Structures are given as structure tokens and as C-alpha cells.
């Protein structure tokens, strides 16, 4: 009367003896996860409301700026007369300033394309998301890469006479070298702690601000240098 069981429920680790096994995951046998009780904060509403409030404050400021400050309105455009210099909107004046030094293919096509390609491929690399200091590991190997890149890039800028871009490059390169030859116990531990992303972003922002300021205020007829307070 009693049905004989064709299987044995239990733990069997010999694959030759029991090649086919069924694992029952019950509450008792479920894998144990080592969890540490940490303070938890939910994205909504704690973070979401803060972002929404910040966005609203920014929008209110912009709306009132638009209401109170009139946009500069020039005379009606005349197709017979091209203004000298024909300037791009302020956020493109950095690129226009680069266009002055490099051939149009380099500044208008090659550099923006390389930036877009870089944005595509960067996520496929180990981008040091933990923000480890740049010179913490493989210092000698990294210095062997840093010096040729820094010197060749500076030379490249000098060959094209891009002196405004040389200044931030040399400044950031010098600070990176200072960081490389310091240590966490030195007088400048904050310098040593910075990751590569910090240096690249700082260099990019300095270049962007400097080129935009020069293009906006210090360029006049024929894209020659002028002093804004003399015009």
C-alpha cells in the first residue's frame, strides 16, 4: 500500500552517485545574507522634494531676471552688411576662439567628435568611481604615462600658438606633478587625494571659462585682441 519514494530528500554532494538533483529552497534553506542595519533614507520624498525645491527656486530667479532685464536688441539685420566680428552666442565663443587657432576641420569637426566619442566610450572603462587618489597605485607607471602626455599636449598647443589654452594646461599639469611627488602625510594632502577625474574636469572648466571670456570681451574687429574698457 505504501508508495516507495524514488528519491531521497537531503543534502548530497556526490554528483556521480546522484547526477540529477533538485534543490528545494525553503525559508529554512534560503541563503543567508549578511545585512548590516544602516540608517536608510528614501529617495522620495527626502531627496526628490529637495531637488524639486531647488529647481523651483532656480526657475523663479530666471523668470524674474527675464521679467526685469531686457535682452539686448540690436538694429534690424542687414544682409548687405556683415558685422565685424560676427560673434556666436556666448556659450559658443570658446569654440569660436579655438577656431581662430586651429584649422576649421580640427576645431569644428575633429575636437567635438573626439569629445562625443570619449563620452560614449568612457563608461566602458574603469573610471575609478570610488574617487581613489590618482597617485595611490602604480605611481611609477602612471608617471611614465603622465609626463609624455603632458609634454606632447603642451607642445601641440604651442605649435598652434594656442597660448590661452597653454596657461590652464601648464597650471593643471604642474599641480598634478606636485601631487605626484607629495604624499598623504605631506603639507598638501588634499592635492594628493584628488583623482584623475578632478584634474580633467578642473582643466576643462578652466579652458572653457578662459576661452569664453577672451572670446566675449577681448576680441574685436578682425578677431584681433581688444581691451573691453577701451572700446
Amino acid at each position: 500500500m505504501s508508495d516507495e519514494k524514488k528519491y531521497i530528500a537531503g543534502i548530497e554532494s556526490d554528483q556521480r552517485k546522484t547526477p540529477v538533483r533538485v534543490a528545494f529552497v525553503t525559508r529554512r534553506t534560503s541563503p543567508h545574507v549578511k545585512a548590516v542595519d544602516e540608517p536608510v533614507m528614501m529617495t522620495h520624498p527626502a531627496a526628490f522634494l529637495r531637488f524639486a525645491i531647488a529647481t523651483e527656486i532656480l526657475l523663479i530667479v530666471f523668470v524674474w531676471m527675464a521679467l526685469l532685464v531686457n535682452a539686448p536688441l540690436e538694429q534690424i539685420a542687414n544682409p548687405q552688411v556683415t558685422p565685424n566680428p560676427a560673434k556666436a552666442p556666448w556659450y559658443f565663443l570658446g569654440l569660436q576662439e579655438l577656431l581662430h587657432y586651429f584649422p576649421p576641420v580640427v576645431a569644428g569637426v575633429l575636437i567635438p567628435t573626439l569629445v562625443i566619442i570619449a563620452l560614449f566610450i568612457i563608461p566602458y572603462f574603469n573610471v575609478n568611481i570610488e574617487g581613489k587618489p590618482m597617485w595611490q597605485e602604480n605611481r611609477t607607471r602612471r608617471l611614465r604615462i603622465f609626463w609624455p602626455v603632458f609634454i606632447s599636449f603642451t607642445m601641440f598647443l604651442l605649435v598652434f600658438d594656442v597660448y590661452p589654452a597653454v596657461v590652464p594646461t601648464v597650471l593643471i599639469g604642474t599641480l598634478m606633478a606636485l601631487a605626484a611627488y607629495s604624499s598623504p602625510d605631506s603639507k598638501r594632502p588634499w592635492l594628493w587625494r584628488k583623482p584623475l577625474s578632478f584634474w580633467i574636469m578642473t582643466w576643462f572648466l578652466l579652458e572653457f571659462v578662459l576661452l569664453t571670456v577672451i572670446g566675449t570681451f577681448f576680441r574685436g574687429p578682425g578677431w584681433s585682441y581688444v581691451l573691453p574698457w577701451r572700446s
Partner: protein
Amino acid sequence: MVLRAAVEKLMQMLKRIRRWLFGDALRAFGTLSVVLAASLAIAPTTELFNQWHAYQRGYLRLVRFRADGNSLQRRFQPGLQQIWIPEL
């Protein structure tokens, strides 16, 4: 003493209003939403009540009773037109 009491009362009232408007994140969000909506509503309102709008409406009222009123009204272009007088 009376002035001090009045100032204290005023401060308490301001504190109560501040707590009611910005007491927590949700209240601050609500208050700022109202301020933003009101700010956005100001632009079209000022456009409606500005000086040149009133002049254009006055012009239309004036030409309505003229013999050539119909053709003047037909040729009328509402809105702001930019002109450039080189001599100026």
C-alpha cells in the same frame, strides 16, 4: 514695554506664517509652486496692460468712426513692429 510686546507678537506671527509656508519640505514645495505659477503669469499680464497696447486699442477705436475705417482696420497689424531709422 508696549512696543516690545508688539514686536514680540509680530515676530511670533511671522514665525507662525513661516512655519505654515515653509514648515517642512512639502509645504515649501507647495509655496514655491504657487510663487512660480504667479511669476509665470506676470509675463502675459504685463504684455496685456503695457503702454503700446493701450495706444493700439485707442487707435482702433479712433479709426472705427472714420469713412476709411474699414480699410484702416484691415491694414492694421497688431503687436510690436521693430523699425530702424538710420538717422536716429
